[in-house]
């Protein structure tokens, strides 16, 4: 497998860093190599939040994403910032319950109401990040549904396993509906 670059952007509190960690764990469980990094806005508190994951079956030197293959944006600000210059052929997943204006992009754009799905389908907005992961797995096939589920359950807070299991499934379904590979 070639080096694949993922960028997950949104705001602090949405759990995107956790999502990145789960994605990387799932990849490792699948026998791949993975590096996860993150960055914050000017402040530690609030503001923009970004997680990046690189997955490959070789050594990963440079740990940052330069030319993402997959981009998830979960805020308008993230959409404005990260969709510029996206390469043709990239997959762009947009949480359309939060992003109202999608800038023009070269890649394949998939609009999903992730936050609404979480709030209305699962009763808790906070699992939108996990819904997003499910969709991303379905759409890319980089990690399998099983590994993703295992990694999720291992990393979410105790007592929230059932909620998150459902969130993964909601995401997988949403992704599949959009032509996911799983």
């Amino acid at each position, binding site marked *: 497998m070639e080096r694949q670059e993922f960028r997950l952007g949104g705001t602090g509190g949405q759990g995107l860093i956790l999502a990145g*960690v789960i994605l*990387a764990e799932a990849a490792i469980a699948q026998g791949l190599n*993975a590096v996860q*990094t993150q960055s914050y806005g000017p402040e530690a508190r609030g503001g923009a939040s970004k997680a990046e994951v690189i997955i490959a079956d070789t050594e*990963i030197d440079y740990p940052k994403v330069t030319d993402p293959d997959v981009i998830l944006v979960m805020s308008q600000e993230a959409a404005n910032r990260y969709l510029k210059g996206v390469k043709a052929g990239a997959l762009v997943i947009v949480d359309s319950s939060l992003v109202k204006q999608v800038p023009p992009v070269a890649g394949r754009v998939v609009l999903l109401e992730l936050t609404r799905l979480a709030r209305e389908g699962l009763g808790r907005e906070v699992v939108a990040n996990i819904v997003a992961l499910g969709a991303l797995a379905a759409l890319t096939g980089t990690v399998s549904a099983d590994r993703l589920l295992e990694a999720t359950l291992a990393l979410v807070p105790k007592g929230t396993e059932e909620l998150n299991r459902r969130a993964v499934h909601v995401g997988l379904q949403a992704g599949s509906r959009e032509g996911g590979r799983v």
Partner: protein
Amino acid sequence: MTVRLMQGNEACAEGAIAAGMRFFAGYPITPSTEIAEALAERLPQVGGKFIQMEDEIASMAAIIGASLAGVKSMTATSGPGFSLKQENLGFASFCEVPCVVVNVQRAGPSTGLPTSPAQGDVMQARWGTHGDHPIIALCPWSVREAFDLTVESFNLSEALRIPVILLTDEVVGHMRERVELPPAGELTLIDRKRPDGPRESYVPFRAGSDGVPLMADFGAGYRYHVTGLTHDEHGFPVSAGPVAGALLERLHAKLERRRDDLDRVATLEMEDAEFAVFAYGGAARSAAAAVRLARAEGLRAGLFRPQVIWPFPDRSVSRLAGKVRGVLTVEMNLGQLHAEVQRVVCGRVPVVHFGRVDGELPSPRDILAALKEVARSG
């Protein structure tokens, strides 16, 4: 051992526990805090002690106190806290109290960019405290190496009775990577040498043939004196004069005689390299990628990556100067080790600096461009 995704800071905490560290005192600061947080949880589980002190000065003091009690000790911080630890770090160096100080570098000066990487504390790690003191500093470039070099920091610290600085950076500290940690039994661990003879024959600061005195635990019945004043072999204050001079010289000789062992450089594609990229820590990740890009374009480049930066690997760098046609130094600072490379290379081949101080990791492409520039003129 199992393969897992681990953060650099966590690997450092685990490395410390694997090395036998059982006392940690710290004060939170981004981007080092995860080390303290991991150890707050882990240390009580293994019978060790974790304490959050009122500031970094107190943290540094506390680990020295704990080390004198015979317990391997550590603290972790970042730029502003590292500046505050300097006075007591000098005490540890001068009184030969083993301990490990982790500095996860962030962009400075001052409060700077707390969540962004830099390598601006490299010279400070060598010269941050007053007076001519000896020090050792190590720079890991990966999560696995954060674990390994933490263990090695303790080994060097105990063997040489010297504080060791593990100088990581926000890239290595916050990055999560796939790692496979060595089983506990496979690690070589070094403990300080302790006296076992009678109290009467114990001379606390008289060195053996390796230049390192035996170190008694406080409470072990040796009843000796430790002072930051210039002292004689018995540990008591002396005036200016030959005894004072001899102490300083012995402290530096401890490292000097180990110079070869401490000259630790990892390389990548250096066998036939015509141009070397000199880089360490997080920046070396970009440099490695740049070397691969260069090779792909037919440029014979290699990565020269010191793992121990202090004492500076004069010998290896000097040999390097005899082998390549040019050196590109890549750092997230304005050329701190670059000046050292220049000093050692001494004009034999061109040494060019590529620095970045805007809080971002240099990109492989930018490094490649700089490397081509060196190749063109070199």
